[in-house]
């Protein structure tokens, strides 16, 4: 019986080997103070990663407000969590614009931007899609994936939280990581 179980497990593991590079991973960009940023800097912390742009009318403010709410709900544990906002609109989102924007939501938030190709690389890693759409009255809006990416303290992508989930839910996910730092699969 026991051997059978092990063989089954091995079979399962073979299935689990991904056919392509895993979603997520480290990256380098520029933060809202104009300083270079690497995701590795945040090892030891749970990262809440979100892609958006500062001219975003609805999704991004909602999501960032959500992150800010998560940090409040976490109380003392908030120190072990870092919210990160990556702009998919580097054309408009300079570090200065980002700095203005993110502090509306939470002083601790990191805003990131970079060259269009740098952004594209990171977006690809996280399988985030985005595209530009001109507005009828001038200017443009960005369509973008609105998931929240939860990265564990080892830099491994732990969960993708779809847009619209309550902050209480994100708190649960974060607490799960903090109490189970080995990053055991669920």
């Amino acid at each position, binding site marked *: 019986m026991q051997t059978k179980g092990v063989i089954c497990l091995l079979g*399962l593991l073979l*299935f*689990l080997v*991904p*056919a*392509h590079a*895993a*979603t997520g991973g480290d990256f380098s960009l520029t933060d809202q103070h104009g300083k270079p940023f690497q995701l590795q800097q945040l090892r030891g912390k749970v990262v809440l990663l979100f892609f958006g742009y500062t*001219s*975003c*009318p*609805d*999704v991004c*403010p*909602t999501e*960032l*407000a*959500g992150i*800010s*709410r998560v940090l409040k709900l976490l109380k003392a544990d908030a120190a072990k969590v870092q919210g990160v906002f990556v702009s998919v609109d580097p054309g408009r989102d300079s570090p200065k614009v980002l700095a203005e924007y993110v502090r*509306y939501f939470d002083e601790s938030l990191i805003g990131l931007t970079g060259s269009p190709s740098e952004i594209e690389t990171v977006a690809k890693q996280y*399988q*985030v*899609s*985005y*595209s*530009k759409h001109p*507005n*009828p*009255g*001038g*200017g443009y*809006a960005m*369509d*973008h*994936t*609105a*998931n929240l990416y939860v990265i564990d303290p080892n830099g491994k*992508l*732990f*969960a*993708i*939280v*779809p*847009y*619209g*989930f*309550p*902050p*209480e*839910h994100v708190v*649960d*996910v974060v607490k*799960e990581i903090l109490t189970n730092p080995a990053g055991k699969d*669920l």
Partner: protein
Amino acid sequence: MSFLPVTFLMFLLSAVTLPSEAADSPVAPGYGPLEYALSEVGSYQLPALGKAGDGKVLDTTGRVRRLYDLFGKQYVLLAFIYSSCSDVNGCPLTSHVFYSIKAQMKHDPELARHLKLISLSFDPEVDTPEVMKLYANNFRYAGRAGEWQFVTTESEEKLRPILRDYHQEVQRQLTDDGKYSGAYSHVLRVFLIDPQKQIRNIYSVAFLHKDLLLNDVRTLLQQNRAAEMALAGQGRQKQSAVFSGPGDDKHGYEQLAYQTHSLALDSRRGKAADLMAYVVKPPLGLPKVPVPADNPVKEKKVQLGRKLFFDRRLSLNNTISCAMCHIPEQGFSSNELAMAVGIEGRTVRRNSPTIYNAAYAKLLFHDGREDTLEQQIWGPLLAASEMGNPSVGYVLNKIRHIAEYDGRFEAAFNGRHVSMETLGMALASYERTLVSGASAFDVWYYGNDPAALSAAAQRGFRIFTGKGNCVACHLINERYALFMDNGLHNTGIGYRESMGIRPEKERIFVAPGVSIDVDRSVIDQVGAAPPKDLGRYEITQNPHDRWKYKTPGLRNIALTAPYMHNGSLSTLQEVVDFYDQGGVPNEGLDPLIKPLHLSAQEKQDLVAFLQSLTGDNVDQLVADAFAAPVGDLKKGDPDWVRGTEVEVR
């Protein structure tokens, strides 16, 4: 949730800081509280919209699974999504709504047991099982109760047939320079699928709201429970009773799971019953059988009447017997016709009433124009649209010349020959034996057995005698219950028919679980105009009697659908609904009929009570009918044409 006010604030903020960008699509209703009141659970129908597609998918461990296997025996909400979706009112909306439903399952074990959520990606390239797993990691936080599966497919090729089956048009969005942007354009659809794999509803953005979805699921669950109970009840009856159900029992026909319990006539070999015993000692809950002084019930009369009842030669063209409209296994009525059909397909304008307990009726026919069974039998014998005989003498002459009846009348009636009187007496004697009682209700109420009646039926009885006041016309007393008042009342059914008030559409079932709502105008093109019917007025010519019809007894009512004088109500549920709404208002509406304001539960209980009125000897009476000889035209009969090549059958 405190999240919402914050969101709202941010909306204001963004509107203030970014005035040029404010024009964007508003968020879907699914994100907020529902802004309209939903219909009561169970108060509406969700007809099947077609078969849900099957196909091979990958679960989060990468294993190949059949969609149907994932569906299992549960109700399923299936959403097509892709994880990098950027439209807030698209895939994230479904996740949001599913998440709320999943959270609800924590507090609703029945929902958790019966409903399964499945998100299927239509972007197999990006949404590998690994990515779907990252998604799925979230959902244990919404409580362990209930299941939410995340599945994808191996390749676009494997996905395509599934998308086709669900009519999901998915197109890759291209950037201005013609490259794939990573986004898809698709029309959001969520499918509600029942355990028979039938699609019961499809939700688009505007309708994708937790409350609406749950209302629909609960409606299906409730209706399925009711159907299962009905089928189970039937099953129980079937074990002891092979005969009492109709040949082709349409009960549950609106469910896809419907299977006919039809028994071939040849396989129904009945057993004669001691019919006299029922007259001598009526079943529990029934009074002494009233018998006219000049026609005491005697075995020979009963047997003669029984033979006549099943004799097709009693009709003008030798095709229709009494038993063909008062069909024994259809409650001695006709379950399949709202209004009866006579010889050559002629339409009778009223519903065949049951013969069960006709012995107790002081008024016969729906308009109460006769008062003895002996006289009543001549009505159908002579009606042009029923058995079609031209005269009394014609019928008597024919019987005189059928050899099988030689000496039968003389033996039964002390030497008297067949006559207008003796024919009526014989048929009446048989009909008088068809008394049926000792139902679950009788054993409970008159037999004082508290366990005999289900809790629902007991509650229903309290409504029957209390809030519903059905008992005002369907009388019961301390010793027996006939559920009739020998009176006539205007409920508005006749008025509605005369005034031509009819629904715009009528639901036509074309196969089990498959119905079409057909426009009235289409039906009218092919149907005959409904016959005029003024009820009791036709007998008395008194304007106050317009649209008054006899109060029928309620015993064995579960066996005698459809209901009302014109068979216009198909189920007991519909009958209860009809009285609950207070009938159809009209000048002559009986003052006893008014809106009852019963809850869905109370109505269900009332139906349960009505279903408890089925007598315990139904099976014996129907079996006895199957043992009776069927009279058919044969050589030597007056109508037999010598040399006829085609046997008249």
